[in-house]
């Protein structure tokens, strides 16, 4: 730490203390204003008289001879310059030095002549750059919302694969209460469906498709290529092609790593919200899941994948449109309790349904035969704990 100042100003000020009481009581001449000047080196202040001159403020000491001029351009505000308030000024080149004027009579003159004080009287902060920045931030948000550029996807891609796998397992576990359906014939039918929708056996290995009871008519894709087909959905479907259409759609989400990006987005936003507003919680995985939603573009792209895969399998891509329409009718067009979060936030639009219909093949053959379809519908005849 530095040594305290022990220089001449303080000795000088000590002297002013002794004489001060006698001199300060003298009357203030007209045009002058009583105040104090402190050097910024100690808390001692000298009594002064301040008046306006052509080049700046003339400061004359009351307890000793001598005066100094503070030119208009060096004056800076050391407090708000308000009507009826005393004035506190600083000196641009003498940090810490302060001139205190006990009344506001010089205020108008200061605002007229001192350039820095004019700025101060306008409120200090410059609003326009801030408004522009705010508009810019809104613009960036809008752009992120409507373009395919996604920072969340970039971050998701940087995270290790093991993390995605663990998250996928945890999500699937929390949705199924840890139990999946494992009737052997049903599972075989599901794997047959997956194989037919895949390019090759190798590609099929990238996905991990299971069925389970999830309490709503839905299917979902979790990080790490995990697809969970709800038993409720399989029972609601009227043909194997409807189930296959949904599965192919989910495989599309898996291919595009939509769930990975959505998780990063939701986790990031909720954490940001918590930090900014002081509450809210990062939330359990189940909460994350219900808040997870994909953009319209992601849904459209997944539909395209569904169409391509269904065509390759020789099945009917338009079956998915039937399925969507029946599901919407059941739930009265909009979402109600039990409808999947996916369908709720982005219900299949007329446009999506029309696209699916347009993709119908002149002739198609169901993706599963009758025996396989029956087995699939009964896949939950037996259940087992979910393991990795």
């Amino acid at each position, binding site marked *: 730490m530095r040594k*305290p100042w022990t220089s001449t100003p303080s000795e000088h000020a000590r002297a002013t203390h002794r004489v001060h009481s006698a001199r300060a009581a003298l009357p203030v001449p007209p045009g002058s204003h009583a105040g104090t000047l402190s050097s910024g080196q100690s*808390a001692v202040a000298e009594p002064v008289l301040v008046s306006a001159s052509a080049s700046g403020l003339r400061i004359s000491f009351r307890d000793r001879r001598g005066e100094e001029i503070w030119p208009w351009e060096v004056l800076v505000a050391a407090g708000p310059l308000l009507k009826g308030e005393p004035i506190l000024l600083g000196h641009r080149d003498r940090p810490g*030095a302060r001139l*205190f004027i006990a009344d506001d009579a010089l205020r108008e003159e200061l605002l007229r002549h001192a350039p820095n004080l004019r700025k101060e009287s306008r409120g200090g902060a410059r609003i326009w750059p801030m408004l522009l*920045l705010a508009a810019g931030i809104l613009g960036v948000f809008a752009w992120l919302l409507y373009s395919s550029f996604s920072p969340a996807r970039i971050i998701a891609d940087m995270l290790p694969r093991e993390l995605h796998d663990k998250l996928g397992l945890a999500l699937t576990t929390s949705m199924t209460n840890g139990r999946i359906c494992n009737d052997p014939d049903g599972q075989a039918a599901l794997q047959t469906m997956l194989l037919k929708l895949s390019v090759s056996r190798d590609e099929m290995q990238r996905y991990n498709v299971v069925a389970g009871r999830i309490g709503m008519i839905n299917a979902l894709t979790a990080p790490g290529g995990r697809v969970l087909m709800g038993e409720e959905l399989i029972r609601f479907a009227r043909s194997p092609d409807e189930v296959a259409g949904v599965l192919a759609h989910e495989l599309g989400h898996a291919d595009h790593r939509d769930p990975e990006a959505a998780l990063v987005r939701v986790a990031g936003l909720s954490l940001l919200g918590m*930090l900014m507003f*002081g509450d809210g919680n990062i939330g359990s995985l189940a909460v994350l899941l219900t808040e997870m939603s994909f953009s319209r573009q992601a849904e459209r792209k997944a539909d395209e994948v569904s169409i391509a895969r269904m065509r390759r399998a020789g099945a009917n891509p338009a079956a998915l449109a039937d399925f969507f329409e029946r599901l919407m009718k059941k739930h009265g067009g909009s979402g109600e309790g039990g409808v999947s979060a996916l369908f709720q936030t982005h219900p299949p639009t007329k446009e999506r349904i029309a696209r699916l219909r347009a993709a119908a093949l002149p002739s198609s053959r169901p993706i599963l035969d009758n025996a396989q379809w029956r087995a699939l519908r009964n896949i939950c005849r037996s259940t087992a704990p979910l393991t990795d």
Partner: protein
Amino acid sequence: MQRGQDGARPSSSGGASLNITWREPSGFVWLSLKNALLTILTLGLYYFWGKVQVRRRIWHAIRINGEPLEYTGTGRELLLGFVIAITILFIGIVAYAVLVFSVFGESVVAKLLEAPLYVMLFWLTGIAVYRARRYRLRRTRWRGIRGTLTGSPVSFAYTWTWTGLLVVLTLGWALPWRQVKLYRRLTNDTRIGTQALRFDDAATAGPLYAPFAMMWFSGFMVALLVFGAAISGIALAMNAGTAKFTDVWVYGAFGLVLALVAAGVILHYHAVKLNYLARHTRLQDGHFRLDLRIGDLFRLVLGNFLILIFSLGILLPVVQKRLARHFVEKLEFVGTVDLDAIAQAGDNLEKTGEGFAEALDIDAF
């Protein structure tokens, strides 16, 4: 007229007395509305500049020997500090969560490992308290002289954390002891220019225990009564047919009495504590004297509460002004100081504002 000149009335011992006064500022309602509007229009960016405007006016309203205090902080510093703090917190929390999850998954161990994160956040709060106070002292000037804190935020945060854990372990009974301990640390670290504040060595938390016990046992009773009322309320609701309309009034009056009692004992404790701490805070040969009374405090807090509720928080600057006014008007300095001995401090000034304090939401003004 001596005040407004040098202002320091020479006393018999050769030092100057310090006369602390409040000069009521005008235009706070307008300032509040302007800040709220600009904050919304700029998506929150203006918040920091608005805060600086409020502080400048409040500081300016505080006069020592007729000369105002000066606030030299800037919106840019506050914003920068906030952005840095929130980035560090964000990255830290995410990295920790990802690490724990990728090692333990969603298991009991992972849940248990949340605890160190909370301790860490509590520790950061200590850092924030110390740094925020230091920032404000460094940005406060009187006659050009500014203050500072000379200690280490890390060492303060360490004391802050373990004494805080002790308060939990003792069901609150370590609280007065902790508050005096932390206040002593902050006071003894405080410099006004080169001049240190001192908290009396002999002043312990002892005298605070009588009002604290009153507060603690009242709190205990209130908790019991609320529990009892909840139980009987449930019983009431279960045979709803027999419940009369007057019961609602009985419950309402009962709740109001409890709230008044709770507010009374809490304010009493705070008044006793703050008066006590001020009396033992010394600057050179003098010491401070604070004269808070429970009746005044009650009116102040109730008024502030109503203002905040009915203005939806927009008039927060008015509330802050009222708080500052109350404390300044009740505060005086007893004795004299040698102003020559108060020379400018020579330490570094950090370039960013209160960051963590803002991010963790601990802030009086």
